[in-house]
């Protein structure tokens, strides 16, 4: 097995999911300079809602793809409504408030949504019904599953669709104009409140699809799953330059790759048996082909935050961002 290629495949899968979620953070930040900490919870709701629909329909003799489609078709509008609700109820009343207020509200909403999900779906880790047959292809020494191909394909299609929306449509132009100067956008006749609401709704729609795919990929869902995922996607958005649409895409993919490659190699790199001659004790423990690994692949989650810290220290405006530090 080719570890490198395998981890690239895994990293692309993860990374395209991060990218889609990161877009939700970056679009909202770009337009109202708010870090919507509750966005990860919208992804979680997407996973939970589609899990419920899929579980309910799993007994029927519908084809698996139709069941999954049904799940996502319920999850998308539900999450869009949730995104709209968040903006309307929690953030809009604070549009003119000092910036800390909506930020704290966002954290509050994220906790509220976690608790609501816990009440609705229990505090247990739920198994995502595995109704899709596991199909795996071999590719130059690495294996790639049909699900991974679908995830990568759908994420890229959604990113392309979003790019078209933002750079080629009237709504997209209004979003970019509002992001740059809401007051002037108003003078052009842009209903800024509606554009901001649309931004939340679009981000939430993407989050719903991402939630379903994350659930299918890991085979489980949990009311706290949005917290880690959200922080990683947020790190990806910061890595690309928060507020910058292509930046979120690049940042997401890069973060996924860093994580997967890191997880793939960290065991080997921190295997103390490479330095077996340093101590007699190590020598005996490594003698019969054993190894003494300092950090295993369970350290995968650390990479996102290492990347986040490095970016904040060395390039706070992110890879593609230009004008962030003063506004963050």
């Amino acid at each position, binding site marked *: 097995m080719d570890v490198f290629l395998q981890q690239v495949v895994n990293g692309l899968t993860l990374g395209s999911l991060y990218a889609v979620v990161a877009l939700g953070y970056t679009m909202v930040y770009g337009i109202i300079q708010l870090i919507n900490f509750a966005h990860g919870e919208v992804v979680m709701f997407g996973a939970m809602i589609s899990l419920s629909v899929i579980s309910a329909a799993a007994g029927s003799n519908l084809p698996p793809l139709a069941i999954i489609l049904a799940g996502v078709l319920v999850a998308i509008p539900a999450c869009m409504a949730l995104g709209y609700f968040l903006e309307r109820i929690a953030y809009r009343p604070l549009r*003119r408030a000092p910036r800390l207020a909506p930020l704290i509200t966002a954290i509050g909403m994220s906790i509220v949504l976690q608790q609501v999900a816990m009440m609705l779906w229990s505090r247990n880790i739920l198994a995502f019904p595995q109704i899709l047959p596991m199909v795996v292809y071999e590719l130059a020494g690495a294996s790639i599953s049909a699900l991974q191909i679908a995830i990568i394909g759908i994420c890229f299609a959604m990113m392309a669709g979003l790019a078209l929306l933002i750079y080629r449509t*009237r709504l997209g*132009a*209004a979003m*970019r*104009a509002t992001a*740059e*100067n809401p*007051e*002037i*956008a*108003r*003078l*052009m*006749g*842009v*209903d*800024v409140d509606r554009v901001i609401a649309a931004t939340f709704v679009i981000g939430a729609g993407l989050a719903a699809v991402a939630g379903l795919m994350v659930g299918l990929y890991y085979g489980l869902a949990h009311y706290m799953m949005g917290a880690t995922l959200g922080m990683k996607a947020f790190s990806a958005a910061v890595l690309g330059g928060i507020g910058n649409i292509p930046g979120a895409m690049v940042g997401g993919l890069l973060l996924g790759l860093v994580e997967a490659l890191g997880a793939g190699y960290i065991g080997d790199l921190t295997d103390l048996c490479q330095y077996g001659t340093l101590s007699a004790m190590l020598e005996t423990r490594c003698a019969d082909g054993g190894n003494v690994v300092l950090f295993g692949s369970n350290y995968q989650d650390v990479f996102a935050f290492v990347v986040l810290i490095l970016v904040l220290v060395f390039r706070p405006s992110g890879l593609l961002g230009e004008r962030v530090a003063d506004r963050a």
Partner: protein
Amino acid sequence: MLAVMDLQVHYGGIAAVKGVSFAVEKGETVALIGANGAGKTSTLKALARLLAGYVTTGSIRLAGEEISTLAPHQLIGKGLALVPEGRGVFARLSVAENLTMGAYSRHDKSEIAADLAHIYDLLPRLKERQRQLAGTLSGGEQQMLALGRALMGRPSLLLLDEPSMGLAPLMVQKVFETIRAVAATGVTILLVEQNAKLALETAGRGYVMESGRITLADSAAGLLADPRVRQAYLGE
């Protein structure tokens, strides 16, 4: 066309506009001149309903309709466009996208295309640079773009806030030529300027604003001849 009655603007405790009343008739170009901080920009912003976060009182009638209760994005549909102080072009949108944003409130696609062609005729520099990001234009070109963008909304009343600000003399001449050309097409203009001479040479009538109040109102020729104006604003 425009009738303003007892307009007041308060920023917190600061009264910037202390009850001004004036009118602009259809087809006129009217100048509003005054020193720094007189409240000119505040007046225009209040007309464009951009001061919703502050206390503004008074009546603003546009073509007989009270507009002081409308949301700012509804005004362009009523025919009111503001070219703001400092131009306010969307720096990260292309020149063409900026112009298209000007027509955001319209839905007559073929007419919009015709107007765009017309703007490019009027301002050929913009045509050469239509794919360029607006932020990369020179100050004068940005002023032209801001003007062209406002015209794309087919306003009946155009509010201009210091179009000459920060421009070299030659460019100022060009901008004002364009303003006169626009006025000649029948657009009503309310022109705010520091450059009182230029403004009064362009307008038919004028108002002088001093610390939040209108202190003089006369024909442009009358104001140009008024010793108080000559002393305070024409540097004589």
